[in-house]
């Protein structure tokens, strides 16, 4: 769940945050969270064409990128390029950061800050990004489970129909029969139902 962010200092609310995420929904969730927390200067990049140019033009203080994005390596190159433009560096540069790296990797977010910016100033923003990324994955998992449950329910309904027709059972009896079979085989009712539907299709 999203954690209530700490109060934002005035100077920090001006930080220019660039968010690189091809997932439109997740990007909006994070953008909204940052804005609610008082960070008004947020740019979302969804189009990966000419990313390098875009970053140079936007000149952000903080960059977030989703870890599913292959363009993460493009950012890493920017540590090496021209010394005269402000360049991003990895958020994590000392040994004490490994716990933080772990949290970020598990949340699926990569973080870069511009050279010279104090890490403490960005910590609250990173925490916010991680909590929103985590909340989004939970949401995505929930959706996936709901989708699965829906498709399972459909299969169970079909299997029930087959049993009711073939064995002249009531709906309750049909379901009870499948549940008993599932219990005997240590399987889920949906698996028994799927097997029954497949077998029936094959015998047609």
């Amino acid at each position, binding site marked *: 769940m999203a954690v209530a962010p700490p109060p934002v200092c005035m100077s920090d609310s001006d930080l220019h945050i660039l968010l690189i995420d091809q997932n439109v929904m997740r990007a909006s969730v994070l953008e909204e969270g940052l804005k609610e927390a008082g960070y008004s200067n947020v740019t979302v990049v969804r189009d990966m*064409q000419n990313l390098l140019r875009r970053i140079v033009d936007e000149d952000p203080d903080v960059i977030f990128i989703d*870890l599913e994005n292959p363009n993460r*390596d493009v950012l890493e190159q920017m540590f090496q390029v021209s010394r005269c433009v402000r360049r991003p560096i990895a958020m994590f540069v000392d040994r004490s950061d490994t716990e933080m790296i772990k949290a970020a*990797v598990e949340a699926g977010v990569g973080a870069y800050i511009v050279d010279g910016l104090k890490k403490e100033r960005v910590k609250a923003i990173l925490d916010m990004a991680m909590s929103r990324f985590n909340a989004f994955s939970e949401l995505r998992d929930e959706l996936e489970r709901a989708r699965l449950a829906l498709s399972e329910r459909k299969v169970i309904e079909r299997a029930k129909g087959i049993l009711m027709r073939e064995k002249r059972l009531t709906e309750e009896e049909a379901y009870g029969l499948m549940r008993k079979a599932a219990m005997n085989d240590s399987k889920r009712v949906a698996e028994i139902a799927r097997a029954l539907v497949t077998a029936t299709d094959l015998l047609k």
Partner: protein
Amino acid sequence: MTRLIIGFIPLLDCAPLVAASERGFAAEEGLELTLVRETSWANIRDRLIVGHFDAAHMLGPMAVACTLGIGHVRVPMVAPCSLGLGGNATAVSLRLWNQMTRDGAAAGSPPKLQGIALKRVLAARALQDLRPLTFGTVYPFSCHNYELRYWLAAAGVDPDRDVRLVVIPPPLLGDAMRAGQIDGFCVGEPWSSVAVDAGLAAIVNSTAAIWPSSPEKVLGCRAEWAEDHRAELAALIRALYRAALWCERPENHAELATLLAEPRHVGTSPGLLRRGLSGRLILTPGGAAEALPDFYLPASRWATFPWTSHALWYYTQMVRWRQIELVAEHPGLAAGAYRPDMYRAALAPLGVELPREDTKGEVFFDNRVFDPSDLVSWLGR
């Protein structure tokens, strides 16, 4: 069975890992490998650091960069086994290729002649005040970056001043070239062949032509993990050694290409992957396949031996291209990231012949010789 989780990037040279996992070489050593396909080298590094992966398909220079802590948290990594020699190529857009051929380049010509042609094209562009050409590589700490830079510099082209170098993930190189964002790139197979087949690019050099027996990926893991899992790591090295021998045999190429072509591995057509495996590459769109000598060697010439001189050469390139300052204790740390001792210990039960030394000299296409015992003169200091 011990289960190991191993990260990899979809490239031809993940072949020994895939073969070890799918053809029983790991199982013979009591290992069950779970291969996890990753999208960026940065993810490979971070997921090793946080312990999601036990070991990974890794860029050789990345093991050195992590150990020295360049640009990121310093986490000692080790490379106890290499994953083959060669496998990279430099390709340019057809537009640039046409200009280069007018200036003397030809398909399959030696790198020196191709370099002279490129230099002439650049000189003409400078006179016309055209934008500098842009070349893509895959990661700042990569052989691709250093090999491309070596070739450019040897041709009298300053890679930081006369051209722009950018990083583009391999699967996106084709789109970037089509959009005119890059004029060339250096990348591992099958991605050059993919661009040639798409009618976008011509292959200029194999990196084996720039640096014969040039190293590429390694098996990378955290130094701490390697110390704590000596037996498992040794078993993995033996599995990879046998898998690499299997990968190199021509009679296995068709099967290997089919295996690698699966979407869970590289995910391009088997035909494209076979080009890299056999070293018979189509260099220009519509051209005939040409045999490039020693294009990709998974096993022969001690291709899996982790020479500490490879680590030292990478270190000199980091210094040469100003990724890091020359510091007295760094060469020792860099060399220490490569662990021939672990490789030797792992293979001892097999009784195979191994190199007597842990370092060797390297010869480049311009006849310069890298002597790992004299870094200072190699760096011209």
